[in-house]
């Protein structure tokens, strides 16, 4: 598996190559990009911050969960941190599997889990201000954004 946090631009081809396997009949790639408009408000750029060691640990945990649920061959998850401009790639996830349904489902699962429990935060910068998304002062951008019962260490 490949789990990585980087300050450099993400190259999809490199992420894709990490999961290519002779046994694979399908490779799905998800690419999350920086959107200009959110609820009509114009973003100038984003800033991502990570608790890197824990984020990597949680990403590896997600890959473990995927391998239990689907017969996936390989998984690569790469998240970028630092300043990102509109259309930049924030995250890329590649999944290879013998058959496409598993590759699609597992890929989506990976992204939803990242949004739930991997300690990475984004700050939106607008013309008239800035805000850490998911913070207590404003509307929560993501409903989940926090680990659920099963994610707690007992």
């Amino acid at each position, binding site marked *: 598996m490949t789990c990585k946090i980087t300050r450099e631009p993400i190259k999809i081809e490199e992420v894709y190559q990490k999961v290519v396997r002779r046994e694979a009949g399908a490779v799905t790639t998800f690419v999350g990009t920086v959107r200009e408009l959110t609820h009509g408000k114009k973003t100038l750029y984003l800033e991502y911050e990570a*608790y890197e060691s*824990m984020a990597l640990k949680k990403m590896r945990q997600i890959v473990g969960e995927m391998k239990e649920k689907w017969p996936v061959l390989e998984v690569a998850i790469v998240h970028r941190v630092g300043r990102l401009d509109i259309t930049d790639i924030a995250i890329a996830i590649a999944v290879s599997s013998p058959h496409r349904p598993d590759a699609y489902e597992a890929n989506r699962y990976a992204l939803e889990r990242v*949004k739930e429990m991997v300690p990475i*935060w984004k700050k939106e910068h607008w013309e008239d201000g800035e805000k850490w998304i998911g913070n207590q002062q404003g509307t*929560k951008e993501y409903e989940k954004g*926090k680990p659920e019962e099963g994610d707690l260490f007992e």
Partner: protein
Amino acid sequence: MNKIMLFAQLKEEVGKGVIEIEASGKTVGELRKFLEKETPLGNLDGIMIAVNEEFVKDDWIIEEKDDIALIPPVSGG
């Protein structure tokens, strides 16, 4: 001493990414109350606490040298 790591808005509010507090023997819930009372962090409702890179509940007991992190709602992806 225990290292308490701060991120995102919490880091900006306090002006630094790490604070040091003697927390061993305290539960996570007790630490939470202590931080709310004794630091500029204020209300920590909705903030998860991780010990040694795992999310834990408020009844978790902190040990000497444990690394603690305050985790605001995440927004990666």
